[in-house]
């Protein structure tokens, strides 16, 4: 079992010893669920850290901000950043390493094992609690969630409230870390791709009906992009102008900006946006499910990424985020790659 005090102790130690610049972790949110990211600089604040089933966020997203910050500063403090990661998040670290976006010495990884559970799906829990506010909760040893609300304790079986991605997670404990909390486990769920098959089994017309309805909800707030640890491009296809623009960029170069997608939130444009997003995450998405969680309109974006995760595994035997030294999915090939779809 993970012991929060161990985490706090270690956090306190590395901050005190000035090993790290600050620690990215979780703390209690204003209205209970979920937890919220916190950035701890002073050893004494280490006490504010929490570890519970509400620690949903993939904090590696914030490494991008740190990198940008360092780029801006004249005399940056280049000490590593302490970061708390779950199994899925740790694989994001591996991908960032693989893509040379960060160096291993940039981060001090405090890995926390989800052991045989994971994080709670906010919406599932809300349904269970029928609008009541969860005051505190944690897993017991029988994979039950013990929740306390204003009217007392109740226990819910993990499978009923776990985030779907956790039920399909291939690595519940971190694959890269400087220190590990909790037990190392590697459950391989009998079906990692259930959510994908649900849609695959629909007919082409049904699939389209399904996705059209989903895409038409999209308001292009780009939260899915903004929250994704892999979406770190300086310029995104959806941005109207390029951040690469500098004082000496010529008018011609500015004119080179291609409008792959219009700003109008209409089916075609939104469809293209989500396709491009999924393709760009092929072989890079580690299924932390953040994109789907943050969507204010509950678009099951994760299904798109998960599909490509499945194909990468099925067609190319490619697993994401376990080996920081492997070639990326689209910059490698095998002679035996399938080509039955090619005429």
């Amino acid at each position, binding site marked *: 079992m993970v012991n929060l005090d161990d985490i706090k102790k270690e956090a306190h130690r590395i901050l005190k010893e000035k090993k790290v610049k600050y620690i990215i972790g979780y703390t209690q949110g204003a209205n209970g669920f979920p937890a919220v990211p916190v950035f701890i600089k002073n050893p004494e604040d280490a006490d504010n850290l929490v570890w519970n089933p509400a620690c949903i966020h993939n904090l590696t997203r914030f490494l991008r901000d740190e990198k940008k910050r360092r780029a801006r500063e004249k005399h940056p403090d280049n000490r590593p950043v302490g970061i708390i990661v779950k199994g899925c998040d740790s694989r994001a670290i591996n991908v960032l390493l693989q*893509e*040379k*976006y960060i160096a291993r010495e940039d981060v001090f990884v405090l890995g926390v094992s989800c052991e045989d559970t994971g994080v709670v799906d906010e919406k599932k829990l809300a349904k269970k609690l029928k609008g009541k506010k969860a005051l505190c909760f944690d897993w017991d040893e029988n994979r039950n969630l013990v929740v306390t609300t204003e009217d007392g304790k109740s226990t819910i079986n993990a499978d009923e409230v776990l985030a779907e991605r956790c039920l399909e997670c291939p690595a519940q404990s971190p694959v890269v870390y400087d220190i590990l909390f909790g037990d190392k486990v590697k459950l391989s769920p009998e079906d990692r791709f259930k959510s994908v098959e649900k849609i695959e089994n629909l007919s082409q017309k049904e699939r389209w009906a399904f996705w059209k309805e989903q895409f038409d909800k999209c308001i292009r707030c780009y939260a899915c992009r903004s929250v994704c640890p892999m979406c*770190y*491009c*300086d*310029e995104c296809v959806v941005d109207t102008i*390029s*951040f*690469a623009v*500098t004082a000496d960029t010529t008018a011609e170069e500015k004119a*080179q900006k*291609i409008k*792959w997608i219009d700003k109008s939130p209409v089916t075609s444009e939104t469809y293209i946006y989500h396709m491009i997003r999924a393709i*760009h995450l092929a072989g890079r998405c580690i299924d932390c499910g953040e994109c789907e969680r943050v969507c204010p309109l509950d678009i099951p974006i994760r299904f798109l990424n998960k599909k490509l995760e499945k194909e990468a595994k099925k067609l190319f035997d490619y697993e994401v985020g376990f080996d920081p030294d492997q*070639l*990326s999915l*689209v*910059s*490698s090939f095998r002679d035996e790659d399938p080509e039955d779809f090619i005429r």
Partner: protein
Amino acid sequence: MKKRTGVFVCHCGINIAGTVDVKKVADKLSKHDGVAHSEDYVYMCSDPGQNLITDAIKEKKLDSIVVSCCSPTLHEKTFRNAAKAGGINEFQSEIANIREQCSWVHKDKEKATVKAEKITRSAVERVNKNESLEPISIPVTRRAMVIGGGIAGIQAALDMANTGFEVVLVERSPSIGGHMIQLSETFPTLDCSQCILSPKMVEVSKHENIKLLTYSEVQEVSGYVGNFKVKIKKNPTFVDPEKCTLCDECTKVCPVLTSNEFDLGLTGRRAIYMPFPQAIPATFTLDDKHCPGLLPIACGKCADVCDPGAIDYDQKPEIVEEEVGTIVVATGFDLYGKEEMAEYGYGKYADVLDGLQFERLCSASGPTQGEVLRPSDHKVPKEVVFIQCSGSRDPEQHCAYCSKICCMYTAKHAMLYKHHVHDGQAYIFYIDIRSGGKGYEEFVQRAVEEDGVVYLRGKVSKIFEDKGKIRVWGVDTLSGKDIEIDADMVVLAQAMRPSKDADKLAKLLKIALDKDGFLQEAHPKLRPIESVTAGMFLAGAAQAPKDIPEAVAQASGAAAKAVAILSQERLFHSPQVAKSFPDLCTGCGMCVDVCPYDALSLKDGKVVVTEVLCEGCGTCSATCLRAAIEVKNITPLQIYEMINASLGG
């Protein structure tokens, strides 16, 4: 800012105009954004047609042109030159292929016209975003390398050296000369092989422009046409040629006896030896595989008797690095092993020889000083059976191809045999006689008529030893009769195959092999001398089975090709290469991984392009997630515009 583009629609007689309303296309395009001039003409590629273009460029102040005509593979150059002549950059010219990809494949005039329009519009959109480019110029290292010191390599080296360029000739064995120096006489003139080759060998050794590296092997090749860097491993001979006086004392005391490669095992040699009397360089070599002397205190006899003290057991292999602008590969051939021939006794029988062994047997400098004697008992063979196509033309078990020279040398062998053994009888089993070549057919006739060689059309099914004879079972397919001959000697015309380790070398050089393992020419008809890699040329039997004249011809051809490169101060490389955008690059290195030419590398976390290595395939740009790299003049923006134009209307 849109450009001022000129559009020129070609009728190509009726080839295009027959199915495409060229006037309409020209008229429609004249209204396309950025088109300042648009016209049609019956033959754009004709001089008047080209003048039309150059004039229009000048009069209408065009800064780019699109020619709607045949495939760019045909006239791209023509119209780029026309653009140049008009005073604009050649890369401001694009071709819209409305013949092969439109008029020729459609009948419906209306539809074909619409399509021709779209194709042209998309070319206009492309050229609109074309950069003016200048070919990338690369300084040339004006030296050449020849790999392989057989007749082809020698010829190529001499030809290049004689044009005044320095040549590095690399040979794997201790002496140059290759297989030709092993031959006795050569068809169809029967002149002595060594007599015609050794002068060339001497010339090589004396030539001021030739740097000879024998007993050496290529280990590493880097760079590109005009600027290759080659690492060569020089194996130790343990003998200093400067000091060695060729007194030959050492061989007398050497206790080791091993089989002599030069005589193909028909004789033996010492561990310290000179491959053959005319060897170049003329010096001894101590073969460390057999010499015990290299082990401390083991032997050392040769060193003791060597007054000049030329022998140095402590010699180590050294790595020589050579910079050259071009490379000629002449690694030659080996014979297909007798041991492969189940039907002919796996080469177990002493009196079953292959062609080269028989050459040695006939050679005045050979084991028997030119007397034809059976290796087993040194008796004069009275009946000799020659078997052609041994291992050739046999896709099931051996080589599918025809080794080409066997018909001729077998005829020669039979003839030579008769000249040595007047009362002997020569039989030749053959499938076909292929005697194409100057004086070749006559030569074969001479063998039959003057020397009474018996030609039997058919294959030999089996040979085996029986009471000191070699029994040959065959069939004469002309008479249909089974034939059994008790021969004293059998000579197998073994197939020619690429020399040992040619494939490894090809890998180092990044040049392809064909299905049989011979070096692949760039084009079977039009570029038979070039390899697929720019700046590397092929000579001799390394490319395909050849006889001496062919090998020499190709060698001179390769030399000429190589000199064509060396005679230039600088080479020019297409400027349509990758271009990176550091501001967008995050240094993930995916493009570096996919580049087939190692043209990309990371420097301080950003990708950089080595333009001379880039062939402009664009795989990097499709791989990049951040649009941080693209190929000039076929950028994503241009494709984007082309897509839009192709779909409009």
